[in-house]
């Protein structure tokens, strides 16, 4: 394998996605050599790194902003990473991943600021874990090769495990292990599904590939689609988490430190919904169609269940955690409705939830830093003692409720309109979730913010300081901005969502297949003389028991796997990419 030094230099030092993804992890290395006592230095260093990362992210997105407020997909040059199996290092940012990437780099500094006093020991390790976690998140969002995607997906596990397990609350170890095992259990079956697809691709195309565009070209019979979708579904549904796979979430949220909760709710959960939108739905449309009633039922059940359980909570953090299940239920409803408007709403709602729930977790954390309790019973009348705190809590809660003029309303409204258009009554049932959200969040406000000050300890609580206000203001401004003028936030993703939906419907309209094959291959008899394929990365094909022989597997143009990206881009639902 020859090393192309120019290419590597361009990837590492140019304005590239690679730099954006790897910078936090590489910048975490010097932390190894910080003395153990230098808590403040490690903290400041991490914040500086996160600000640079924010700058890199904004710079990158701004440099590739298309005309008319749209965002066109951009890619890093591909590198053959594990040529034996046709595995490529390929990163692409398109209109679907861009908002989430921006959200990630935007939240990171606030996560660190929110942990400023809450994290009291091993700041070196905390900062390192956060930075490596950021690399994992960004890589997961940008990976354009399913093997690479899986690697980044798993890379996120260990730092999050450490963050919950080392810096968390009393039952932190239980929560950390539960989080780890749940996520791992789901994702390992997804790994098998990915391997199976890559092998099928090798069978029909003659060369290994894990590339997104190549696997999109793989047409599968309904039978395999069902179990493949089930494997992907399990991985993503646990991550979201969808009812009934949610039981790890309350534990993880309640025990995680503030920063951990913010990044968990704000970003990690979105990777599950992102996975559905990017992989599970476009890959297996027939399976989605088959399972749609069940999927919608689970999404709506999540909305109502999350809201009802949130209602009876007596702990602020637990309430916000259960509200996440309800809010992500809305996102899932929008995704499974398979409708352009619903998808736009779902994508926006992912960002919204990151902002408003992130802010709520930060606020609960700030209160906890002062009083070391999160129970309603310990608070009342905080508006009198901490007016700034009360203002931001009310503001974020209303954004979360979906008050018109704030961001939550736009997302939920679009999801409900789109879902009603596509699946009718499911949306009507889900609307009760909006009502319930008002009930439980207003209950939290009544118990904590309003009323007389009943506890002596609370009379002298300090209001938010400058650092804390500075942490919250940007989030609040964004919530307001999205609420007042959502169009600029919707437009960049519209084209790519549309393309994904068109591809989904095109695949759905294809006649059912008996055996796996490539989607753009003519039936046998109509093609030109079969060519002998160069099997560069091909394993010798072993005859496989149980899989019927594939007709004319060699009927692909010889170079299909590597150059297919461009000419079949539209049909595959893969954006054309500027390189």
């Amino acid at each position: 394998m020859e090393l192309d030094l120019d290419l590597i230099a361009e990837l590492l030092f140019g304005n590239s996605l690679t730099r954006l993804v790897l910078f936090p992890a590489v910048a975490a290395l010097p932390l190894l050599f910080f003395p153990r006592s230098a808590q403040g230095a490690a903290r400041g260093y991490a914040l500086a790194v996160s600000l640079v990362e924010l700058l890199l992210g904004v710079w990158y997105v701004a440099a590739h902003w298309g005309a008319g407020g749209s965002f066109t997909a951009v890619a890093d040059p591909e590198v053959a990473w594990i040529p034996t199996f046709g595995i490529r290092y390929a990163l692409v940012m398109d209109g679907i991943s861009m908002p989430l990437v921006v959200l990630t780099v935007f939240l990171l500094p606030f996560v660190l600021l929110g942990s400023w006093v809450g994290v009291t020991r091993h700041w070196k390790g905390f900062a390192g874990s956060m930075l490596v976690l950021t690399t994992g998140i960004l890589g997961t969002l940008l990976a354009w090769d399913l093997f690479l995607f899986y690697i980044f997906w798993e890379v996120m596990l260990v730092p999050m495990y450490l963050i919950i397990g080392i810096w968390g609350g009393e039952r932190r170890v239980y929560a950390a292990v539960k989080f780890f095992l749940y996520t791992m259990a789901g994702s390992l079956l997804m790994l098998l599904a990915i391997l199976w697809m890559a092998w099928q691709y090798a069978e029909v195309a003659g060369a290994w590939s894990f590339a997104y565009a190549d696997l999109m070209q793989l047409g599968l019979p309904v039978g395999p689609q069902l179990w493949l979708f089930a494997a992907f579904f399990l991985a993503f549904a646990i991550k979201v988490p969808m009812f009934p796979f949610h039981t790890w979430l309350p534990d993880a949220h309640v025990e995680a430190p503030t920063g951990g909760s913010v990044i968990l709710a704000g970003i990690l959960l979105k990777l599950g919904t992102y996975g559905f939108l990017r992989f599970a739905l476009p890959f297996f449309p027939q399976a989605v169609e088959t399972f749609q009633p069940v999927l919608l039922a689970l999404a709506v059940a999540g909305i109502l269940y999350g809201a009802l359980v949130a209602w009876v909570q007596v702990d602020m953090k637990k309430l916000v955690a259960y509200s996440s299940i309800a809010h992500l239920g809305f996102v899932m409803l929008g995704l499974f409705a398979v409708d352009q408007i619903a998808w736009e709403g779902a994508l926006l709602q992912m960002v919204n939830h990151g902002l408003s729930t992130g802010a709520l977790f930060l606020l609960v954390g700030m209160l906890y830093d002062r009083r070391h309790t999160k129970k309603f019973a310990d608070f009342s009348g905080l508006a009198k003692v901490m007016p700034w705190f009360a203002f931001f809590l009310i503001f974020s809660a209303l954004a979360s409720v979906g008050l018109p003029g704030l961001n939550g309303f736009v997302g939920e409204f679009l999801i409900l309109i789109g879902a009603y258009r596509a699946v009718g009554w499911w949306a009507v049932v889900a609307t009760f979730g909006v009502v319930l959200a008002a009930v439980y969040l207003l209950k939290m406000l009544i118990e904590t913010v309003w009323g007389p000050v009943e506890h002596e300890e609370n009379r002298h609580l300090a209001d938010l300081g400058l650092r804390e206000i500075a942490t919250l203001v940007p989030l609040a401004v964004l919530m307001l901005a999205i609420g007042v003028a959502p169009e600029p936030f919707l437009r960049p993703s519209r084209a790519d969502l549309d393309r994904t939906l068109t591809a989904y419907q095109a695949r759905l309209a294809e006649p059912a297949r008996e055996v796996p094959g490539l989607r753009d291959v003519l039936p046998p008899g109509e093609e030109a003389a079969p060519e002998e394929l160069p099997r560069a990365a091909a394993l010798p094909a072993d005859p496989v028991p149980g899989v019927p022989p594939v007709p004319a597997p060699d009927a692909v143009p010889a170079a299909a796997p590597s150059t297919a990206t461009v000419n079949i881009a539209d049909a595959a639902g893969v954006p054309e990419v500027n390189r």
Partner: protein
Amino acid sequence: MTQADVWSLAPEIVLTGAGILILLLEAFTPSLRRAFTALAALSTLVAAWAAVAWVPEGLSFGGIVEHSPVTLAFTLVVLLSAFLGLVASGGYLRREGILTGEYHALFLWAAAGMLFMLRATELLTVFVALETLSLALYALCAFHRKVRVGTEAAIKYFLMGAFASAFVLYGIALLYGETGTTALAGIGEALALGEVSLLAGLGVLLLVAGFGFKMSLVPFHAWSPDAYQGAPSPFVAFLSVAPKVASALVLLRVLTASAEAAGFDVGQVVAALAVLSMVVGNLLALVQRDIKRMLAYSGIAHMGYLLIAMATMTPGSYHAVLVYLLAYALMNAGAFAVVAVLYARTGEQHLISELSGWGYRFPWLGAALAVCMLSLGGLPPTVGFIGKYVVFIHAVQNGDLWLAVVGVLTSIVGVFYYLRIVYTLYMRPEEHAPVGVPRDLWGGTAAVLAAVAILLLGVLPGALLDWLWRGAAGAAGF
């Protein structure tokens, strides 16, 4: 015997010669003892170089000894394991006051026996090599004479090993009786020709069982937890890997030879052994409180994953097995090197709970152990994940999807007990300050080397996989 024949044994000659030299030095100039470990480790490197550069490709000694890209790769894995084991031994031997020439000589001779065994294409040669390496290993198991469990471990290992040898010998006899040859290629041809007789089938099964003992597969695993617990820790870094590497190649050869046999599918037996090993190994590892016993059961489970790749024999099997063994060699060597340093008191217990909070006290050793654990658990970006990947994709590709599913489910169980080590290191308050844990540069070096290699090969496995793949493709003709 021609000159080329002699050259073809260069790696074995280097190792054996270095062992003899160290014994002579021990007898005549014991003051040089401090240099023995370095000398022995150096000789493994020279042997590796000899294997790469000096040995002519092809068969020698009239077709008994083979040198091919596959045997070269297995040879290098054995030597890597020997090198890391020896480096890890340096500080340990000094600390325990058992720094002698015999340890190093036996160590090198065991390695020589393994190289000889994995290169043999004829069953009696395999048997002679097996005995050579086994005798050296038995002696090394009991090397720490002051530790009583060490002797117990050696006796258990010896008794079980004697059984295994008998199995192997009986299997050879049966196969010879039915096919008239002890050469594996000849046996393969004879089996492919006609209906397989019951006795020949029994012979193959006995061989599988015999090497199953050496690889500690369920149900032939009972010796390994006891042996690992009692034997010197840095030596276990070698014992838990290298004999399995050599045996795996012999097993691959036996399975390849019997793969063509009409009306006889030994693959089913292999698949059953794989499932048993994965399930039993992982479940028993879950309840261990002694880290060495836990690693022993984890090793049993890992050999189960390895067998997934042998259930259906293709050239890809060689590739998958090689990658997996290389990963396994690195992670086990790293883990046992850390164990050798941290459990410095000469005792019989290596309780996991003793590590509580030590991740902060020993940042480098703790991190190395954590990396090894995550790699054993198969998490990316470590080489352990790459190993699992090649094994699973081999299963998927050959219609053994159910084996891969079992592997996936059991490795979730595995993650639980590997994480417990990480948890103990970093998430529990320190229970007691280490008593007499010295600064051990030897052990630390071995552990950190292994951890760095685990991460490096996990992130950039491309060149390695490619090289091994091209090597394994050569095995197709075998």
